[in-house]
């Protein structure tokens, strides 16, 4: 996406319902052909953004542009977007064919064209043999496909998807995720997706916008969100993470010495490797970069799969140590729960090493806890910082 053109632009958009503020000064550009996902807990405002784009709600302040056209004051039927609803919202009194044809009929498309377009849309979602059925005669997954066909048959600039997979079972959801990705490639249109499921967001999106309480906390590629979260909310919302409290002792260039859980360790500030380090968000708060001076409190975040464990020798002193208190078999991996010397419990995920089964740890063993340098994430302690 070298010469990415903006498809959707939100300019300082906010929305209140009464005295309740749902969106606060959202400023965002979505490019043509991009798959962007709004990820967040319920009530974070992600669905409201979608409803603003569809035209079901008007922003309290700010402007919205879709395809270069200011749509802030345009009703839904005059916007080049279509929506796939969470509960599908198929018209129960119409057949599958009539459901899909609805949008074309509203635009006074000639009947012959309608026939061809509807069947090609239904073929795309493999539902052409069900065209005469009623929605009530279809399974959840089939209704989902019809809802998608009904939206894309109108050739919108943007497809809005409001948690469309949440009502499906796990296997079907996985299959639909792959199909949606394929569909996006075929159609080449912009997808804006809303979900509270981080796995779903990561597996499909080009970019993910993590939302909380009406603001976008971080907008980045899935890997950057996972590996370089800009704050504790993002870090905790996407996947499991271990949090250590610490304090900066001294800084020099790309690294610093810090006291973590009572032990002196070296932390990386680079962020040029595979993972985190203290990540400096572009144009964001300089807190994690500038203000980490000697004495400031910090949080060190470590994904369970980034934790490296070594057996501790009996006479060993110094460094972070703990003992294994439980192991959880997960099939491909094994989760180890470790109680640190200070009493804190952390989670580590290990892959099986088939060649060295003796390398697996067992309950009661004392281990030294480390990580691959540069894969830790250092954030200023938000409790003592104003965000």
């Amino acid at each position: 996406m070298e010469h990415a053109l903006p498809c959707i632009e939100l300019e300082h958009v906010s929305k209140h319902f009464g005295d309740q503020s749902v969106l606060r000064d959202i400023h965002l550009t979505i490019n043509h052909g991009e798959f962007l996902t709004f990820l967040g807990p319920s009530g974070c405002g992600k669905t409201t953004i979608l409803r603003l784009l569809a035209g079901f709600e008007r922003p309290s302040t700010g402007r919205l542009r879709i395809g270069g056209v200011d749509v802030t004051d345009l009703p839904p039927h005059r916007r080049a977007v279509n929506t796939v609803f969470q509960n599908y919202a198929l018209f129960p009194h119409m057949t599958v064919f009539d459901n899909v044809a609805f949008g074309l009929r509203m635009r006074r498309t000639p009947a012959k064209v309608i026939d061809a377009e509807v069947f090609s849309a239904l073929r795309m979602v493999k539902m052409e043999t069900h065209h005469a059925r009623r929605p009530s005669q279809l399974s959840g997954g089939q209704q989902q496909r019809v809802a998608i066909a009904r939206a894309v048959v109108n050739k919108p600039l943007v497809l809005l998807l409001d948690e469309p997979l949440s009502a499906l079972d796990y296997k079907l959801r996985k299959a639909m995720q792959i199909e949606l990705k394929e569909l996006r490639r075929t159609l080449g249109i912009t997808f804006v997706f809303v979900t509270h499921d981080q796995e779903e967001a990561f597996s499909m999106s080009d970019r993910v916008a993590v939302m909380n309480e009406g603001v976008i906390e971080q907008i980045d590629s899935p890997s950057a969100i996972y590996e370089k979260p800009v704050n504790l909310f993002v870090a905790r919302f996407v996947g499991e993470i271990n949090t250590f409290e610490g304090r900066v002792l001294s800084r020099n260039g790309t690294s610093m010495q810090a006291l973590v859980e009572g032990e002196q360790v070296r932390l990386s500030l680079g962020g040029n490797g595979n993972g985190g380090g203290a990540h400096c968000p572009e144009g964001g708060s300089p807190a994690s970069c500038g203000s980490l001076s000697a004495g400031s409190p910090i949080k060190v975040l470590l994904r369970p799969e980034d934790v490296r464990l070594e057996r501790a020798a009996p006479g060993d002193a110094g460094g972070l140590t703990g003992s294994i208190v439980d192991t959880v078999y997960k099939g491909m991996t094994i989760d180890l729960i470790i109680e640190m010397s200070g009493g804190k419990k952390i989670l580590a995920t290990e892959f099986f090493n088939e060649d060295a089964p003796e390398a697996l740890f067992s309950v009661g063993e004392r281990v030294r806890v480390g990580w691959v340098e540069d894969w830790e994430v250092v954030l200023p302690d938000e409790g003592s910082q104003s965000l």
Partner: protein
Amino acid sequence: MKRMVKAVYLGTVYLFLYLPLAVLTIYSFNDAKHVVTWKGFTTRWYVKLAENSVLLDAAVNSLLLAAASATAATIIGTLAAIALKRYRFTGRTILSTSMYVVMMSPDIVMGISLLMLFVLMGLPLGFTTLFLSHVTFCLPFVTVTVLARLTGLDGNLAEAAMDLGAREFEVFSRIILPLAMPGVLAGWLLSFTLSLDDVIISFFVTGPTFEILPLKIYSMVRLGVKPEVNALCAVMFGVTLAVVSLTQLCFKERK
């Protein structure tokens, strides 16, 4: 044992509901001037009924009035229900509450107040006043029935239609109205029935130019129940039975 209890219980319920109707129907075939004793089978009361043009005129008037007022009440009531469900406007709460007030207020109060209103307005009592009154008391029943149906629907359907390019009128004509139709039909039937057997309100607002059946029967019965009236009631019950069975059948097929 349990089945026995069930059968007896159900039997009692049906007995209470239909015994009076059964007695009425049987006695409409009774060959006697007075109803109390059975004197043998006859259909002469039905023949007499068919010759009684005053009674038949009243019946036709009643059916006409019921059809007209049910239709008017259904149109206004359906629109009111859709407005209450779909839009937020000033006076919305007052409107929805006032529906229940009209529904709950005693017929006698309604009748007297309507009579006073018509007299003050200088409207001659007759078809017009009956029609306006019947529309008034049927309207809330239609609104409540349609509203119940609309509330049971997926709230996103109208938005989905708008999203697909439908304007406000198309959302109404292609989505909301077809989906509300069972409620609309039920509302019409309910209004029709209410209008057809209303006595109290009609008693106040009727005029000499337009006689309706319930009032005619009421005035006839004051001089004793004639077998003709029995026959008429039996015919009306038969019609009701047919209409109800028909609608049940229709709705069953829709599903």
